[in-house]
């Protein structure tokens, strides 16, 4: 399975944007706190990621994530 960082980034940004924040704010460096993305949103993101890439993200994985970039990198690493 080959997933590019760009593909994951597109999917993550699109998913996060559907939760409320403006798409333009969702950069790699943006923190979930700044975007008002909370633990429930991250569980929803994890469901999308699992559906799409077969990557299972548990609660403890999510706790470590601070920025959008952190999430993208973790998903790409696990998918690879």
């Amino acid at each position, binding site marked *: 399975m080959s997933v590019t960082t760009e593909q994951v980034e597109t999917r993550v940004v699109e998913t996060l944007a*559907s939760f*409320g924040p403006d798409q333009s704010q969702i950069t790699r460096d943006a923190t979930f706190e700044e975007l008002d993305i909370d633990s429930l949103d991250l569980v929803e993101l994890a469901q999308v990621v699992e559906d799409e890439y077969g990557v299972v993200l548990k609660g403890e994985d999510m706790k470590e994530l601070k920025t959008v970039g952190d999430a993208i990198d973790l998903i790409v690493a696990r998918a690879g």
Partner: protein
Amino acid sequence: MTQPPHRRRVVVTGVGAVTPLGLGAATLHDRWAAGELGISDGLAACQEFEASEHLSVKEARRLDRFSQMAVVAADEAIAQAGWVGEIPYDPLRVGCVIATGIGGQQTIESQILVMKERGAKAVSPLGIPLYMPNAATAAITIRHSLRGQSYGVVSACTSGAHALGSALRMIQYGDADAVVCGGAEASLTDFGIACFTSMQALSQAGVSRPFDLRRDGFVMGEGAGILVLEEEEAARARGAEILGELAGFGSTTDAHHITAPEPSGGPASRAIELALRDAGAAPEQVDYVNAHGTSTQLNDAAETAAIKRALGEHARRIPISSTKSAIGHTLGAAGAVEAVATLRTLVTGVIGPTLGLEVPDPELDLDYVPGEARPLVTGNGRPPLALSNSFAFGGHNVVLAFRGAAR
């Protein structure tokens, strides 16, 4: 009956509504009084309510429709109370009680479908926070930083009225200085409609015509009604505009049948008597009754019997009308929505008619205000007194007494 002990008085300083007649408490009452119907194709949906016009993407997707409507109605009530910017009380002294018959029915149904189609792991983590019956209460407390007592109330079609009664007691007893209270319901789903249809509760004709000989069931509605209650002295001290007083609350139970009302109206009449005693008022002082008036055979007969038992001969002298004739039955929201309509009646001095009542039932011989709106007439220059009745599947009876502000 003994007089109640001295208690703190409770006034209404704000009202808000989302109903099948549109957005706003004034809209509800004005359109009802003008004879407009919020019913089409046998359903009373809030067609003018679009959550995205009032809430951000994040707010809207985190609330089931019943909570969305409650939040929007609460914003209206809170704005009218003049609480915008800052709440004029210690937040720990402000409560919130929002009722619903069911809660987030649309969420429950959509997530069950997700589970059937895509498995348990696909069920949304937002499922519980959206469908729990206290979700509307929680949303309003978070939005306005209300930190006193808060909870939801469930008693089918008396839910909204019970919420107001609970809020009244909370302030009277001194547990809060102000409470945001009301009810909300949004269960116009295929399943919700099927359930009521199956029990033959809904009008086959799709017409809400309370007290009419041809009445054949209620019309399902949805909506929200919210009131801001404040302790009278505190409200006056801050210069609030007082819309009226929530003067009395009476509640009893039929203990008769799970859906049918007790036909003599005995326990329901007792609820009326208790509300009047609570308000320190005599039956002869009642100027108007906002009836539960569902347009079912059983309710309208039992309610008529209850009003006669409680008010005696005076029952024949006063106007009684049903808001459900215009907006159908908003179920768990009804008690609160109709309390808003009752308050607007006291504020405007205009009584909305019982729409659709054209063929009188010879068994039901009170003045149900058929045809057109009419002025509210008050005896002896005292502030007007109105009752709002609510009765429910489960046998719950709730009556609220509102006194108009002195003019």
